[in-house]
């Protein structure tokens, strides 16, 4: 009993030590001197409450441990009864697609906008899932390929006047090429080295975009990137030279909502395509090889699989989806700058994959929705968003490293008892 109390007290005092200087006082510049001020009351209360919480949690460690063990579960996850068979799953899938198709016509413009953003993250999450979730390669520079896609479209349009539809496949191919070139040398490296090297590559791409002012416009970025058109029909109020607008063609009054809805549907189509392609891939030998590699590289080599080639395909295909997402992002924003492609963006995409459950596509879709819609709903907590992201990543790894909705394969297992 004694040691329980002392360890709790120690933890609480440690919390106070950690927080007292960094949280309790704030630095203020007065002339050229730096002086200290007591922080705002809410920080001080936060510190005291935090220390008290730490004390309580440490004191009731065993009880808390029991709860978290239950939270962790045994790693398995059962779908509810009404979506268990493949037939039911397909039915629900179709219903979800139908609902999402109707959605933009019945909801507000703002909601459709957020939904479009969510779809971009779904695409990025699914793409990164190939690399991290299926092949088990931690890629911390994924945002680099996203940047390549976005800048491909922006630059091809700026210098050569290529339209979105021509640039989209080129952007995907360029991103894949980058993935191939970068992946080729680094894939021999072991897991955590690979992570740091990809992080370095992501940063190199961003620094290049930032400093190569002649080509990319540097930190000012590229503005006035045209929106995609529908078979040559534009969504602007007035047609550009030699063009035709959507509302004139159909003889309906102009509304800016058409553009928003069109972008949403386009993103939705891209996501469906991504899902389709990935679902085919993971049933192909290459997809199975990815997962085998994740589980045991040495066994894979013993079975005659070439790890470098397999890793390279995962890296390249994953990068190409980031390229598609990037060029769509550039078209939707109309403006891009290196600011949008920092490491934090990579970390957010990684957090989506981790939260959803590595390898699980449904999980990733739900996680992407949670990651984009929750911050929109809780705008007043916007400041704390990244703080909570970081905390969540740590807690998820400790409690549920398999994610909220782990991937499940039909399998048989010998019961051991």
């Amino acid at each position, binding site marked *: 009993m004694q040691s329980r109390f002392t360890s709790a007290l120690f933890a609480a005092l*440690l919390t106070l030590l950690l927080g007292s200087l*960094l949280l309790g006082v704030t*630095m203020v510049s007065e002339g050229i001197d*730096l002086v200290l001020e007591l922080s705002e009351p809410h920080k001080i209360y936060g510190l005291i409450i935090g220390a008290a919480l730490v004390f309580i949690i440490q004191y009731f460690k065993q009880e808390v441990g029991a709860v978290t063990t239950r939270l962790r579960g045994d790693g398995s996850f059962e779908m509810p009864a009404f979506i268990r068979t493949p037939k039911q799953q397909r039915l629900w899938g179709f219903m979800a697609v139908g609902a999402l198709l109707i959605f933009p016509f019945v909801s507000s413009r703002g909601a459709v906008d957020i939904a479009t953003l969510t779809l971009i993250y779904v695409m990025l999450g699914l793409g990164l899932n190939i690399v991290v979730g299926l092949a088990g390669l*931690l890629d911390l520079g994924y945002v680099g390929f996203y940047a390549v896609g976005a800048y491909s479209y922006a630059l091809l349009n700026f210098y050569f006047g290529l339209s979105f539809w021509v640039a989209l496949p080129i952007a995907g191919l360029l991103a894949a090429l980058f993935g191939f070139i970068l992946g080729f040398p680094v894939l021999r490296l072991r*897991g955590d080295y690979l992570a*740091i090297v990809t992080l*370095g590559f992501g940063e190199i791409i961003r620094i290049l975009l930032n400093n190569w002012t002649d080509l990319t416009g540097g930190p000012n970025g590229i503005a006035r990137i045209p929106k995609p058109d529908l078979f040559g029909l534009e969504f602007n109020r007035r047609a550009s030279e030699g063009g035709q607008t959507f509302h004139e063609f159909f003889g309906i009054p102009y509304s800016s909502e058409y553009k928003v809805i069109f972008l949403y549907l386009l993103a939705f189509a891209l996501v469906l395509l991504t899902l389709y392609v990935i679902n085919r891939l993971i049933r192909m030998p290459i997809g199975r090889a990815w997962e085998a590699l994740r589980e045991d590289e040495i066994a894979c080599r013993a079975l005659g699989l070439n790890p470098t080639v397999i890793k390279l395909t995962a890296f390249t295909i994953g990068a190409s989806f980031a390229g598609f997402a990037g060029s769509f992002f550039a078209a939707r924003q109309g403006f891009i700058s290196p600011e949008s492609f920092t490491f934090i963006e990579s970390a957010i995409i*990684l957090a989506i994959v981790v939260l959803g459950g590595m390898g699980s596509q449904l999980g990733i879709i739900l996680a992407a929705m949670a990651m984009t819609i929750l911050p929109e709903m809780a705008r007043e907590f916007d400041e704390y968003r990244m703080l909570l992201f970081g905390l*969540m990543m740590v807690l998820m790894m400790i409690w549920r490293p398999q994610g909220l909705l782990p991937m499940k394969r039909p399998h048989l297992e010998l019961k051991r008892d």
Partner: protein
Amino acid sequence: MSESIFYFLQQVTNGLTIGSTYALIAIGYTMVYGIIGMINFAHGEVYMMGTYVAFIALAGLSMLGIDNPLLLIGLALMVSIMVASAYGFTIERVAYRPLRSSKRLIALISAIGMSIFLQNYIRLAQGSRDIAMPSLIQGGFLMGDPNGSHIMISYMQIIIMISTVICMVGLTLFITRSRMGRACRACSQDIGMTNLLGINSNNVIAVTFVIGAALAAVAGMLLGLYYGVVNPYIGFMAGLKAFTAAVLGGIGSIPGAMLGGLILGVTESLTAGYLTAEYKDVVAFSLLVLILLFMPSGILGKPEVEKI
């Protein structure tokens, strides 16, 4: 002719100054990697917090009326080391120890989460803008002709180099002579066997994190005084650079980290001085990639053998 030599020497001096702080941070990476084989991604944030605590301590102490610069620096250094060590200890306890037996990637993701958390914690607690510190120690030695070609070594640079040497000597003595140092070396060779021999490896790992954090705090304080500014985002880049230094010297090897830090600092400084300042970070990353590809065990590291 002589002017270009002076310019070169000046760049090398600046490089050695920065490089010795990289070396101090790199030791934290290399010791942790040597023992538990994980990349402590949050180490750069410990360095950043060390700078913040040092600035707070300096401001607080000068408000109390202490105005001897060396005394100020000494006291602030002690505060900074204490708080940063506490952070190092807590980070290991909270985010890494529960994951000791999991896969490496799981621990790395947790470390990334910790890094994001700490960076934003400081951003919320101390604001995201630059905080400037008036320089405490000015002046320096001038060598050569003051009006013509010369090199300038500031007192601050000398303090940085001397402190680094003191830390390195202290650490080397600790590792080679003390009981705990011997336990550290034993753990880095075979942690399971060390446990069997009655050494509590959890304590050894905790000590490793504390030492790494303390050295990062020293680096944070010195570099903070040298540059005179701090913001919550400096940890990311410094961490990556120091990791590069650790890999360059051979991860797991303490003399390697020292050597790697100095080489990286000089390389960077020469790049900035002769080629281009904008791309000096690119040079550091390219160096990292090239070493990992062609010399994965670094200059002084041992090649890693994968056992089944």
